[in-house]
Every structure is written in C-alpha cells, then in structure tokens.
C-alpha cells in the first residue's frame, strides 16, 4: 500500500511539476491572474466604497454574497460538531466530587442531586481534576484582556489596516480558549456558557443577513449597501464603508462564538465536564 501510494504521488507530482513550465514567472505583474479583474478592484475600490483596505472592500462588498455563505459555513461546522458530539442524555450520577477550597480536601458525596454546583467554600470538580499551575494562571490572566482588546481593534480597523471580522473573531475566540485551557472548562462555562456562545454565533450570522435584508427594504438589491445612505444620513459611498463595518462586526461575533463552541465540544467530547 505504501509503495503504491509513493509511486502514484511521484507520478502525479512529476506531472504537476512539469506543468509549471507553462506557468507565469513568480511576481510577474503581467501574468493573467494580475491583469483582468484585480486591476478594476485596485483602481475603483476607493471611489466605490471609500475603504482603503482593498481586501476588506472586496470581501465585504464586491463579494459579500460569498462571505455571507462563508459565515454560514462556519456556523454549520459548529452545528455539525455539536450534533456529532454533544451528550444529550444525562447519565445518572452516582456521586459528585466537591473540593473544599480553603483546605484542599476533596469530598465524595453520594446522591448529590440537590446540591448546588458551586458555593463559596466548595467547588465542583471531576475525577480528572489536577491542581492548576499558578504561573500559567497568572500569566494568562495578564495576557487575555490585552488579546481581547487587540481582537476588537482588528475588527474595528479592518478598513484601514490588515484585519477584519474573520481575523478579529478568531483572535477573540483564541483569547477565551487560552483562558479555558489555563483555568478549566467549568470555570470558563461560568463566564461564557454554551448558550451564550451559540447565541453569539447566531446573532453574528443574523447581523450579516439582516444588513442584506435592510438593503432589500430600501429598494436595492440584496447586500447592495448604497441604499442604506437614507438611514445612515451619509452619501452612498460612505454608507458602503459603514455597512462594511456592520458586516465585519457580524462576522467577528459569529466566528468568535463558533470558535468557543467548537472548543467546548471537542475538548470535552461533548460532556462539558472538566475538559482538557
């Protein structure tokens, strides 16, 4: 099997490398990919949308239909993970473990269905619980707020600098995942519960589609932001710039929510207990 694989791949790879003889040179400004459509984007994105970052202008305006379904794809991926992994059936628990925080003694309580999960003195833990490292906790606690502010900056400045909804959303989700790794899944579920993460991602997709529907209401095509000038009190070009910001915020919310949702499901394989 391995030899057959190697032979097949060497054959197809040599064909591919042979085909590069006809390819344009690297960095050739006159290559076919660089001459037709992209020239229009570079020359006209500023007069059309007044967004200096051409990539953002194309992503959220010229190709916004594509990006809307891209956001839907991420949401569908989160949904698929949820449906595959989430443990809906609640196993009847025989006992629960509670850790007395001041002394560090763990109590095993049978038939504890009527006890609260957490009080000031007692903390609900799992059998795989390990004491967390002070250094990791403190360091991540120092870093996480700055990462989150940077994520908001990346979303808000997607017009003027490299960035946008996808990148900012991923950074925001990564900051929260860092928190969840350095603390534990139970701690992070107290801050952003599963429901909140799902609602965040749904709201993100709905902001995007809602902007498109609003354009439809004001008498232009779906996701043609120019008609939003009537409610934003600006000229159509600036209205496009502002609508791109709305759309990027929607994308950022959706991506951040789905990242957190995916992490919850995959790290605890759908049980939502201690996690990693």
């Amino acid at each position, binding site marked *: *099997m*391995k030899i*057959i*694989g*190697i032979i*097949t*791949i*060497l054959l*197809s*790879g040599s064909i*591919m*490398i042979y085909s*590069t*003889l006809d*390819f344009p*040179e*690297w*960095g*050739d*400004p006159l*290559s076919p*990919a*660089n001459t037709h*459509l*992209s*020239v229009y*984007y*570079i*020359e006209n994105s*500023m007069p059309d949308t*007044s967004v*200096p*970052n*051409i*990539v953002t202008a*194309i*992503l959220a305006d010229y*190709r916004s239909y*594509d*990006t809307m379904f*891209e956001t839907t*794809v*991420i949401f569908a*991926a*989160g949904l*698929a*993970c949820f449906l*595959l*992994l989430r443990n809906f059936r609640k196993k009847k628990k025989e006992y629960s473990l509670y850790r007395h925080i001041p002394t560090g003694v763990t109590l095993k309580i049978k038939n504890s269905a009527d006890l609260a999960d957490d009080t000031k003195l007692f903390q609900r833990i799992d059998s795989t619980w390990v004491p967390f490292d002070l250094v990791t906790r403190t360091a991540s606690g120092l870093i996480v707020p700055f990462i989150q502010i940077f994520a908001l900056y990346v979303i808000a400045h997607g017009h*003027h*600098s*490299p960035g*946008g909804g*996808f990148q900012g959303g*991923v950074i925001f989700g990564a900051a929260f995942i860092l928190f969840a790794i350095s603390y534990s899944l139970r701690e992070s579920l107290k801050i952003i519960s599963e429901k909140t993460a799902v609602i965040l991602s749904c709201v993100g997709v709905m902001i995007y589609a809602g902007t498109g529907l609003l354009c439809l209401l004001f008498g232009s095509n779906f996701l043609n932001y120019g008609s939003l000038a009537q409610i934003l009190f600006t000229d159509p070009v600036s209205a496009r710039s502002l609508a791109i910001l709305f759309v990027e915020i929607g994308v950022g919310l959706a*991506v951040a929510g789905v990242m957190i949702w*995916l992490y919850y*499901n*995959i790290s605890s*394989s759908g049980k939502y207990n201690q996690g990693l």
Partner: protein
Amino acid sequence: MDNYLFFIVSKFNYWGVMILIMIGIYAIISKQNLIKKIIGMNIFQTAIILFYISIGSKKNASIPILHHLNEHTQKINPDDFVNPLPHVLMLTAIVVSVATLGVALSLAIKIYQQFGTLEENIINNKIAADNNRQSVIDRL
C-alpha cells in the same frame, strides 16, 4: 547557466507548493492513523493557500492598502499593489479549513469512542468481524 538560474528563481515557488501537495496527498492515502490523515489534509490546504498567494504577488509591489488622506489627488497604479483577489479567496479558504478541521476532529473523537482506536486497519478488521458475526446470526 544564467538561463537555468533564472528558470529556477522564477518557478521555485510552484515547486515548493507541489512538494507540499505531494506530502499532503501521501499522508491522506497511505497513513493508517486518522489524525495523521487530518494533518495531511491540512498540509494540502495550506499548500493551496500558498499557491494562490504566490500567484497574486507582483515584483516591487506593496500590500493592497491605499492611503486615505489623498484619495482624490492620488493616481493609483495597479502595478504598485499586489493582487488583492487571491487574498480574499484564501481568507475564506482558511475559514473553510478551520471548519473542516473541526468536523474532522469531532468525527475522529466519535470513531475513537466507538472502536477504541484511530488506526484504520484495526477499525476495518473490527467492522469486518462485526459483519461476520451478524451474518452468522442471520443464517441461524
């Protein structure tokens, strides 16, 4: 000699991409471990992203971000900015790769819960044994 050097310099980015694609397909075809297959799939996707980005590059061009201040006086020369379209396409491709990675990992978790292993040949043997037992029961 100079001719060959020019040829290598102008095409080596494609060769790097092709080698990465070959590594990715090799991992997908002949590795038995499902996680290694997923890693191969990711290497493949990364190679495609690299391919698109290297197509969009131009010599002596800057990033595709204009200046806001002198937007009316500025005459934009398309050769000064790299092609933004492959960047947009690959931004969405990265998102798709994250989505496929998530779904693939959760499928791997489910398979591990079902069979207790991630090795493909052992899983196939277990499925075949199950089918045999089922057919014996049916015959009885």
